[in-house]
């Protein structure tokens, strides 16, 4: 056979092809008849089973859904990173660099001193979890600062209590908006971290829940004096204050005390008309500014023209523990205050979104800037001692009590 294969494979296939198995067909046909009945029955049973399982699934699904919506579980998520660092006060370059870093990455450090280390300035800030890239860039830059004494980075977590279904939806499928941390819980967690670091004399206020930004303030009576006037020395009387328990909410009085420097008369610089701002404490929770404008000296006087008085900015500490700055019906939320500036933010009027008060070191001059979309209003002020104006304002208040009521 080997010779055949070169030309033809048929000789090999033929035994299989021509194989006749018809003799067994009648038996197979009987088997088919028998099995056909069983197959028919099984098909019916299969259909029944399929229908039953369909109903079972249809009934179990809503139960499962209700249960998954009812059962609540706790899930720990990171809300941000708390960065604590200190710089030797002699390193002026580092302070400048830090200032430019804050501008570049739009974050704000809270500066504070500690009694046992008067030559070191301490800083603390919190970066929300969604800005982790920014954090790594900031820390990279911080590490190369001269005089950096310690850099402590801690993650701040918060617990989300939500249903099993919501967890599946948010965590597994990554759909929808995740529950935001509750302010109180977040503050507690930050406080715990601060306590662990021996910084429990700092208090925290949430300035913008939506963005998750956090501001730090001191519970001391004169918080900014800690960083401005008493940089080097802290009295023994002040020391116990550092060990005080953190207070989430300060009294209105305490809150408004950081604006105390405003009280009194300020003359507006670089304006053709003689203009003064007179800040007055109306009560424990309201500071009001009165704008006193003298008529243009170039105009012809008719009769006895006194100065024109109107209501300017007002600062109000509300019951909801937030400080609000108002002017002409626009309100700005207090963001932060340090020795050089005070910031307020408005989220509803883009044209006047930000108010920034920049203070000179001697606090005898300051600048108020309202900025927003294509808008910048700057007012420069200098301390004035004209006592006569105080009486004019008081007379004005007596004549216009509705203005105070409105405040």
């Amino acid at each position, binding site marked *: 056979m080997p010779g055949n294969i070169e030309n033809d494979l048929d000789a090999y*296939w033929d035994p299989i*092809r021509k194989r006749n198995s018809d003799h067994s*067909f009648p038996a*197979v046909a009987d*088997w088919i008849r028998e099995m056909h009945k069983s*197959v028919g029955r*099984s098909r019916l049973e299969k259909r029944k089973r399929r229908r039953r399982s369909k109903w079972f699934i249809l009934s179990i699904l809503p139960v499962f859904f209700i249960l998954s919506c009812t059962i609540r579980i706790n899930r720990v998520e990171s809300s941000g990173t708390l960065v604590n660092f200190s710089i030797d006060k002699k390193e002026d370059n580092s302070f400048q660099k830090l200032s430019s870093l804050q501008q570049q990455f739009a974050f704000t450090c809270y500066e504070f001193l500690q009694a046992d280390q008067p030559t070191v300035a301490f800083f603390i800030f919190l970066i929300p979890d969604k800005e982790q890239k920014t954090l790594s860039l900031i820390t990279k830059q911080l590490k190369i600062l001269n005089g950096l004494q310690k850099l402590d980075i801690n993650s701040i977590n918060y617990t989300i209590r939500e249903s099993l279904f919501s967890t599946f939806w948010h965590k597994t499928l990554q759909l929808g908006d995740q529950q935001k941390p509750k302010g109180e819980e977040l503050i507690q967690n930050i406080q715990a971290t601060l306590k662990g670091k021996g910084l429990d004399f700092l208090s925290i206020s949430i300035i913008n829940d939506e963005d998750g930004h956090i501001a730090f303030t001191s519970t001391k009576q004169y918080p900014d004096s800690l960083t401005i006037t008493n940089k080097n020395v802290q009295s023994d009387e002040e020391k116990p204050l550092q060990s005080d328990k953190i207070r989430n909410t300060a009294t209105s009085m305490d809150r408004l005390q950081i604006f105390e420097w405003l009280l009194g008369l300020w003359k507006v610089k670089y304006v053709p008309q003689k203009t003064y701002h007179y800040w007055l404490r109306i009560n424990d929770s309201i500071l009001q500014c009165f704008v006193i404008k003298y008529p243009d000296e170039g105009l012809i006087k008719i009769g006895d023209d006194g100065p024109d008085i109107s209501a300017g900015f007002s600062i109000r500490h509300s019951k909801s523990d937030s400080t609000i700055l108002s002017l002409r019906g626009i309100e700005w939320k207090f963001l932060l205050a340090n020795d050089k500036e005070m910031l307020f933010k408005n989220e509803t009027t883009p044209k006047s979104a930000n108010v920034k008060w920049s203070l000179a070191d001697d606090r005898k001059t300051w600048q108020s800037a309202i900025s927003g979309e294509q808008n910048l209003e700057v007012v420069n002020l200098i301390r004035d001692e004209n006592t006569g104006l105080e009486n004019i304002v008081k007379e004005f208040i007596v004549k216009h009590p509705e203005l105070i009521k409105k405040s």
Partner: protein
Amino acid sequence: MQRSSEDFIELLKPIYSNAISYCIALTRNETEAKDLLQDSLLKALEKFTALRDDTKFKPWLFTILTRRYYALYQKSLIKKNFLNESYYFETVEFPQIFEKETNELNQKALLEALGLITEKERVAIVLFEVGDFSMEEIRMIQGEKSLSAVKSRISRTRIKLKELILAIQKTLTNR
């Protein structure tokens, strides 16, 4: 649509021997060929109501035979043990379809050579040589997209088989 067993028998009768030959060529073993035929006939009986065109009975049945062959003789243990369907109805013992085992030398050499080629090649060449299917039908049964792939597979397998049979016969004569 309910179809009678007689319809099935009627359609099976002309291709019965052909189907058995196909099973033998694929499995190269009469016992396994019987198992494959029994399993495929049960599957075909279950699906018979779905067959709309009786003229397509042959390619339909051979497609089932081929798929069952792949399913039953998968090399993967997982597939073999867990994916194979088991029938949940009582089965009647399948009749004896082979009288005696053939000792034909040519057939033995061919079956041995068939065992040395891949499953796809084996199915393609057996469908062509034993099943007498056209290239297009083989393409459909094997679920291939390209006809030229089937053509080249068959011609390649033929050459391979020739070489293998030569080698097998040499060893047989040396013995």
